[in-house]
């Protein structure tokens, strides 16, 4: 039977080390909502989302009560609107109409985000997808809880450089159009390579076409718990360090698995996957940077950071796959800057640069995340940053992403405040040597060779 020591350990993780379940995300297919009339389409979308997810928040709260563990977010992911709206939307304005419908659903259901205002254009884009991408700045301005993502490349298809070029400008426009709120529109927009179909985390969540009609995906968390476990291994060798992280990840994931099964039963929606990502929050002690520093680095960004992150990411997965048979989504450590107090500190003390962050994304999901850069950064430079990150994903057969915020009117030395879970960030300098000739070529980067791996 369970003993006092085990009960105390679990409750200490929850009460003192910020253990929580980061998100329960219901994935909903909107393929059966399609219509040639935009108003009928919006109506169908509204009806389907509000009927399937009507008990999501209530159920989440009941589970929190039953197990005494916080479930921070309740979210919805949907079929990429680039598909759903293809028949009905004749202009970017029509797409914005859908975005407003989604926002209304989010408000009424009290979920904090709906993800899937997305286009999958890794090889080429349809007219509808082009219009959707063009509509993103406006859509991000007029909605609060809608997240947008664009998949511009994959290991199988290569990188759609036309889309990469376009998105440099779209990100700039989104920053400009939401400049009164510190360009927050860009915090809800992510560019991906090898985007998974079952990711429960925002802003990149969407319900892929390979998925069932509806499904429950759960994202676990717990950097604080991992950090405390790492601290107990001071001075020990790597074998012991890895073993400790692995055991801790197992425990964290089992809680996620329990919550996922319970939610699936209560909502009568099949369970999909557990996403093993360690996701930080701005709360002190809930930081990936602290985990890395706990391994023996004076600051994140110091030599050794990439190796430390590789260890963390791999051990979390190894512990996690033992705890849940269905692991999916992004599953890796997230290294957002604004959402992680330890990362913010590292940037402020000059230890962490954009280039080091890029190197770190080679060994963890997901990519350059929540990074504020000067508003004057050119669209082609942003496209260049995206292209680099996409190339890392394409060649290494992993998901990578860019969620970067060129904060309008701000420059290096300024700080930007997004609020809530999105946190705050110092503006980071960008290498401004020009890459426009490269970006303006247009076309596609061919898929990489799948042999001779070096």
């Amino acid at each position, binding site marked *: *039977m369970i003993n*006092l020591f085990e009960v105390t*350990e*679990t409750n200490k993780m929850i009460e003192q080390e910020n253990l929580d379940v980061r998100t329960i995300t219901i994935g909903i297919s909107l393929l059966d909502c399609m219509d040639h009339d935009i108003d009928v389409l919006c109506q169908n979308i509204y009806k389907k989302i509000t009927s399937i997810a009507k008990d999501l928040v209530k159920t989440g709260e*009941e589970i929190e009560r*039953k197990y005494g563990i916080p479930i921070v977010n309740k979210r919805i992911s949907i079929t990429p609107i680039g598909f759903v709206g293809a028949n009905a939307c004749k202009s970017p304005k029509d797409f914005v109409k859908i975005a407003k419908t989604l926002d209304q659903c989010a408000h009424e259901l009290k979920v904090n985000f709906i993800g899937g205002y997305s286009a999958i254009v890794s090889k080429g884009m349809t007219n509808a997808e082009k219009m959707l991408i063009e509509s993103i700045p406006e859509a991000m301005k007029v909605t609060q809880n809608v997240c947008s993502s664009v998949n511009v490349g994959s290991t199988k298809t290569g990188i759609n450089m036309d889309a990469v070029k376009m998105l440099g400008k779209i990100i700039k426009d989104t920053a400009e159009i939401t400049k009164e709120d510190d360009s927050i529109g860009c915090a809800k927009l992510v560019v991906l390579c090898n985007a998974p179909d079952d990711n429960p985390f925002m802003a990149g969540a969407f319900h892929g076409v390979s998925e069932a009609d509806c499904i429950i995906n759960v994202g676990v968390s717990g950097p604080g718990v991992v950090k405390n476990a790492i601290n107990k291994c001071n001075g020990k060798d790597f074998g012991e360090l890895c073993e400790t992280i692995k055991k801790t990840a197992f425990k964290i994931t089992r*809680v996620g698995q*329990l919550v996922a099964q319970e939610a699936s039963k209560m909502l009568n929606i099949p369970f999909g996957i557990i996403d093993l990502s360690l996701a930080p929050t701005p709360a002190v002690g809930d930081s990936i940077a602290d985990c890395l520093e706990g391994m023996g680095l004076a600051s994140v960004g110091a030599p050794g950071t990439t190796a430390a992150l590789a260890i963390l990411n791999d051990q979390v997965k190894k512990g996690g796959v033992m705890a849940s048979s269905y692991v999916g989504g992004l599953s890796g450590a997230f290294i957002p800057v604004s959402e992680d107090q330890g990362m913010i500190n590292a940037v402020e003390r000059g230890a962490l640069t954009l280039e080091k962050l890029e190197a770190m994304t080679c060994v963890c999901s997901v990519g350059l995340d929540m990074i504020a850069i000067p508003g004057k950064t050119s669209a082609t430079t942003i496209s260049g940053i995206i292209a680099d990150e996409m190339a890392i994903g394409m060649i290494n057969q992993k998901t990578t992403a860019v969620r970067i915020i060129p904060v309008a009117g701000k420059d290096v030395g300024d700080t930007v405040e997004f609020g809530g879970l999105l946190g705050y960030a110092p503006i980071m300098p960008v290498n401004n040597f020009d890459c426009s000739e490269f970006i303006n070529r247009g076309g596609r980067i061919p898929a990489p060779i799948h042999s001779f791996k070096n």
Partner: protein
Amino acid sequence: MEKGIITVVGEDQVGIIAKVCTYLAENKLNILDISQTIIQGYFNMMMIIELQNSSKDFGLICDELENLGKEIGVNIKLQHENIFNKMHRI
């Protein structure tokens, strides 16, 4: 059999167990196991209880125990046992 785990943490004083047990008896919640220690003056108790005989909803019992804890001046928490089983047993 559905089981719940009650934890009580706080400064030690007379009658903590009595008050918690009275509440449980009034609500037909059978106690299966109790373990308790005092660490540096702090009272630390865990109870395993049977849930199925109570007519009250789980959430309501949680709230009432929490309120009882406030009256006594300690922290009382009720959780379903599965969170501990899942985390500590393969």
